[in-house]
């Protein structure tokens, strides 16, 4: 079964099953991955599901759309491959996707 990987700020690896069609945020919430809040429920309107996509996967995820980009701009911890995980739709070709969790969600 394909999986996705979350690396917590302390370096702990958390693996979760990839569910096609779901967002990465939803998978994190359903698997109680620590460090993802997802307060707005997937609307790119709160910024509390921020992840940093691993360098190796940087080119394989889509670019943030406008609404997401604006929420990311407000985040002082934003990095080059930052995304809101609610805006990453999972498909089979993202099996093994690795993202890093920031120290804080804002």
């Amino acid at each position: 079964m394909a999986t996705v990987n979350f690396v917590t700020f302390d370096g702990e690896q958390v693996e979760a099953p990839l569910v096609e069609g779901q967002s990465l945020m939803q998978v994190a919430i359903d698997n109680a991955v620590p460090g993802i809040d997802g307060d707005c429920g997937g609307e790119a309107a709160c910024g509390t599901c921020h992840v940093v996509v691993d360098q190796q996967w940087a080119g394989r995820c889509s670019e943030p759309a406008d609404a997401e980009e604006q929420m990311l701009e407000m985040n002082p911890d934003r990095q080059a491959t930052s995304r809101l995980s609610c805006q990453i739709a999972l498909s089979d070709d993202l099996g093994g996707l690795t993202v890093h969790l920031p120290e804080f969600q804002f």
Partner: protein
Amino acid sequence: MDTLDRVVATVQANVPMERQIQGLHLYQKAKARLLGTSRPAPFAEEPIPPVDQVGLADIDMSNPFMFRQGQWMPYFARLRDEAPVHFQANSRFGPYWSVTRYDDILTVDKDHETFSAEPFIVIGTPPPGLEVEMFIAMDPPRHDQQRQAVQGVVAPKNLKEMEGLIRERVCDVLDNLPVDEPFNWVDRVSVELTARMLATLLDFPYEERRKLVYWSDLAAGSEEATGGTSDTDEIFRGVRDMARAFTDLWHAKAARTAAGEAPGFDLISMLQANESTKDLVKRPMEFLGNLTLLIVGGNDTTRNSMTGGVLALNQFPDEFAKLKANPSLIPGMVSEIIRWQTPLAYMRRVATKDTVLNGQFIRKGDKLVMWYASGNRDGRHFDRPDDFIIDRSNARSHLSFGFGLHRCMGNRLAELQLRILWEELLARFDDIEVVGEPEHVQSNFVKGYSSLPVKLTRKAAS
């Protein structure tokens, strides 16, 4: 910049801030006298009829007594069911749309291009001459620049530095409360803790901390803006004093830093360390606006959540029992308190173009009020929405912080303060009993309390 703007900027940079405000006040008074503009009579409280005796078109949620009289719940329930996007043509604050369902509020809050936060986020208009510039009421790109300059002070990294101090101050307040006798929770706990927090954030003289609360109450309580009870002349005097105090604070801080003192974690230190805001004191309306926004944003909100939590646990005693049996529920309860209380009832927007919202045609220029207090009680999103359930699974999705670009930047500080308060309360007291009726403030914006009599029972030594 045209000539007038240049002149204004030069004056603002060189004339002491409090003199400018005094000047504005005199100008406004003279103008009112010359032009004969008289202010409308103050709001007089009358009993609000039951909602089923009122025609739909006559429902006016801007009535500043809705919360005090407890009528807001049935009124909003009817609007959500019968007219979720509702037009009121004749309010004291002019015509406006009420948006009352959770999903519609989210739609408006997310779309800052169609629904502008400018020029104000309250339903009315602040007294003329006092339109200080706050980024909560600005659209991008100005909003983004200003928010980025100040948000560090309440960002999680800074809060980590401040948590110990916050806890110390909470403990000090709680250890000095009367036990087994009634006292006013609002004054002794909610206002006191909030004042201490604001003084910490600004590194404001600690013994003068209640001034911050006073100024903030004045600013949020303007009759023209929110149907409150602040007198315009008093507001001008308050803003003048505030301008002087904050300017002094700025210069004192700069002098201390120049003399080699390490910059602190406070807002003024941060503004002075940031390239784009290091001369902010020379842009008074912006300077005052940013500081006012911080004290207003951290005042009514936290204060009334601190009171609302006590009230909610008394109205739902089974939840209080659940909490005492399991204090690890505190973090979740904090979100539920913020949902249940919704200390700021709404934010307002203005349509920038013709649009349609849930079937209603909204014209460019129309005013919309997103009633968070209603969306947070929408049964379409929250099960048993009027019940206080400390382990509610979706409590974090409450609207009280807003969503989108203007989402509350103090959200983590608010959660931290409430969490610490409840941790320390449960460690000390067996019961926090409400022993009388709460008094509600007069406002259509602040959903809050001016007093709540409680009695504490100390925890038996274990």
